[in-house]
């Protein structure tokens, strides 16, 4: 991995199309080149893909069929230089939990060449029935949150949409925070930790509900770790923030873009022509390289 220079920048742009590589070190963003060779050259390196807000069932001006753009994202996943170890779907699988929508998402995602597809819910997946169908299908009837390890990196997938109704905001709830505390307890401070959740775990724009009420309790448990990467969805655009050793990043939707905070009367789908929307929807690839603490987060679009 080299420091960014002009040549490197061009190389990077050529590789990821319209994507940009950002890494964070000591609270300061630096752009770096991360080639396929770098990712594959050392044992223990791996990559994974974050897909978010597929909203299958959505039909609007920006996208006549969200199932089609999801299929195109799967094709992009299958064209990556290295197949991802897993694909994490960070919620809003469906647009309104209409009958058959979960089936469609599952079927399309089966086409992704990856070890495993993991899901966490968005509010669109659980509002109609309190999560009964989603949790039955994707969480074996459990609470939906989970953790796992890949090559020394600890992954935590949180659920912050099930209390959406009562709390009037994204929320994790005391039961999940207690679980998180126990889950993280055995880990060394040097363990890289990646946290997924649908609604951002920091206050992006509370007026539109783009925040998680009790996220500070979760983040307090994570501050001791040297490298924490928080990957969220929900807001259908890339927003990044660094706070100490914690890098926050939100992914694009695969279906339609939403306006930047406060730039529209409401947070709904942007009503723009399809060709203008394509550079605003896509996927996120994340690469972990042994010996480098920040993970490289690479966003690319369907343009």
């Amino acid at each position, binding site marked *: 991995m080299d420091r960014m220079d002009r040549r490197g920048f061009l190389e990077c742009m050529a590789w990821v199309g319209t994507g940009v590589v950002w890494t964070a070190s000591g609270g300061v963003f630096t752009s770096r080149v991360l080639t396929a060779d770098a990712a594959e050259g050392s044992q223990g390196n791996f990559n994974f893909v974050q897909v978010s807000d597929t909203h299958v*069932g*959505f039909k*609007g*001006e920006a996208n006549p069929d969200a199932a089609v753009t999801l299929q195109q994202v799967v094709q992009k996943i299958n064209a990556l230089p290295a197949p991802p170890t897993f694909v994490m779907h960070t919620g809003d699988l469906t*647009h*309104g*939990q*209409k009958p058959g929508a979960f089936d469609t998402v599952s079927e399309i995602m089966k086409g992704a060449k990856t070890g495993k597809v993991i899901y966490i819910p968005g*509010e*669109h997946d659980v*509002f*109609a029935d309190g999560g009964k169908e989603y949790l039955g299908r994707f969480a074996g009837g459990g609470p939906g949150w989970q953790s796992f390890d890949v090559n020394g990196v600890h992954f935590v997938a949180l659920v912050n949409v099930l209390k*959406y*109704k009562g709390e*009037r*905001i994204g929320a994790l709830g005391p039961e999940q925070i207690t679980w998180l505390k126990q889950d993280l307890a055995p880990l060394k401070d040097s363990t890289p930790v990646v946290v997924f959740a649908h609604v951002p775990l920091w206050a992006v724009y509370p*007026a*539109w*509900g783009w925040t998680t009420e009790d996220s500070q309790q979760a983040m307090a448990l994570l501050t001791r770790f040297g490298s924490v990467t928080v990957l969220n969805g929900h807001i259908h655009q890339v927003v990044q923030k660094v706070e100490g050793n914690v890098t926050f990043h939100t992914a694009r939707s695969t279906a*339609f873009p939403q306006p930047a905070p406060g730039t*529209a*009367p*409401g*947070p*709904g*789908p942007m*009503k723009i022509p399809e060709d203008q929307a394509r550079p605003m929807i896509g996927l996120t690839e994340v690469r972990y390289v042994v010996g480098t603490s920040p993970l490289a987060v690479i966003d690319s679009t369907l343009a």
Partner: protein
Amino acid sequence: MRWQGREALGNVADGEVDVVGHRRKPWSVLGAGVVALAAVIALGADARAVSPAVVDIKDSKYLPPTLTVAVGTTVRWTNRDEETHTVTFDTERAGSAGLDLNEDYTHTFTKAGVYPYTCDLHPFMQGTIVVN
């Protein structure tokens, strides 16, 4: 939006809609209230039987945010957004499923009271039906 709704429905009672504060002329608040109240009294019986009052959902807002109706009135909400919305009452054990673009939901209010409601997907959206 309001005119479209009223034209489509044909015979929405003025009193049931205009009492909310969407005055088209710069009448005094008191004057408008008296006129609207008179309209409710005059048209109440017929309006209850046939005319839904209407609320549009647009730009993640309920329009009008507060609607005052007579007991027995059916209120119809129509989603004008591409985003899914719901009509979910705080106190009434009723509410809509997810409404996609141009889908609607109706509810008939049989008891006087104040009925706040929200959208399960966008809790910052707030509306109120006042039933007299």
